[in-house]
């Protein structure tokens, strides 16, 4: 969810090309608007650190609201959807390689539960593969929002 929020904020808050504010010099505009430094600092200070500063010492008051409950259910919903289940495959493979199984309190899966679990793993792998293919294809095609000039003279 954190990554999703960062991506959405980046999508919504990125400045248009050659944007200018407060009549400051082009260099300042390039640094803070074009490169997104202004948005970055705003997100970290307003959206992350301010909350963390208080959450570290006021744990009870911080979670004592319905929005927190909502985020918990939303996170659980994302997990249940199976979108990220390919990570469990990595976990299983890594445990097999190292011979060091991850300790868990969950009962061992069997029958329909096990089948559903692996179905979600396969679904997640498909989504991940497709997403990676799209990103790599767009990068190779030079049609992403990568800064102009990268890669330099490759084509």
């Amino acid at each position: 969810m954190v990554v999703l929020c960062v991506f959405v904020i980046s999508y919504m808050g990125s400045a248009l090309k050659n944007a200018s504010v407060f009549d400051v010099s082009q260099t300042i505009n390039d640094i803070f608007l074009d490169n997104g430094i202004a948005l970055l600092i705003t997100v970290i200070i307003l959206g992350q650190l301010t909350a963390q500063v208080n959450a570290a010492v006021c744990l009870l008051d911080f979670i004592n609201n319905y929005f927190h409950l909502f985020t918990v259910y939303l996170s659980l919903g994302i997990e249940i959807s199976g979108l990220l289940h390919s990570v469990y495959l990595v976990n299983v493979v890594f445990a097999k390689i190292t011979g060091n199984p991850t300790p868990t309190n969950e009962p061992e899966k069997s029958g329909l539960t096990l089948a559903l679990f692996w179905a979600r793993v396969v679904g997640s792998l498909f989504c991940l593969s497709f997403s990676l293919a799209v990103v790599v294809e767009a990068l190779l095609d030079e049609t992403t929002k990568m800064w102009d000039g990268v890669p330099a003279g490759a084509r």
Partner: protein
Amino acid sequence: MHATQLTQPNPKFTYIQPPSIAIFFILMVFVGIMEGMQIAAFAVLRVPEAEYKDTHKIAHTNCQLMFKGDNLQLFLVGRQLLVTLCMFVVAKIATIDKDKWVAKHPDANIFGVSDGFQTFIETGLLGALVTTIIGSLIWRVIAGSKPLTFMSNPVIFVIIWACFGFSWSGILNFSWVLGWIQKKILRWERDEFYLGEEMVTKEKKAKEEEGVEAV
């Protein structure tokens, strides 16, 4: 834009364009190390020092540096900035630029998907999925499973100092003022107010040992 399959031979796969792809995957690894090192460091805390001091010297040095004095707080603040910075860059370079795409392929969508799905792809959310799994969760799994090996990476030593540098720069220090204002407005109280000093100290110590994130 018409949803037609890209059928023409694609010359771009005949050679490698290292920079953009390299930057993307290097950032993935960098974010992954920063996500994992926090998990690994707290996991190493539970291992008696004598057990790994001589066998994992780099891990020992990294942990000593991270947990000395107020270093943990400095590290966490700096790490926050670095992780978010990397994610912003990844979000930028992994998102399809509609103008560039239309200029190059006026009549085609990527992999021949529908127009609606092309619009969805252009939001960059697929990049978020890739970043979450490859740049974050997988590294957390590995760090949790083999914390000592993970912390034995010399790159972590450099990252810790980079985090200190960002914290010392003071660029994010205004968050402490905002935090104070937020606390006053919402009338939040410290946990000690509800639970008592002794209980909170005991609980926090236990949670730190479990690797709970805290600034």
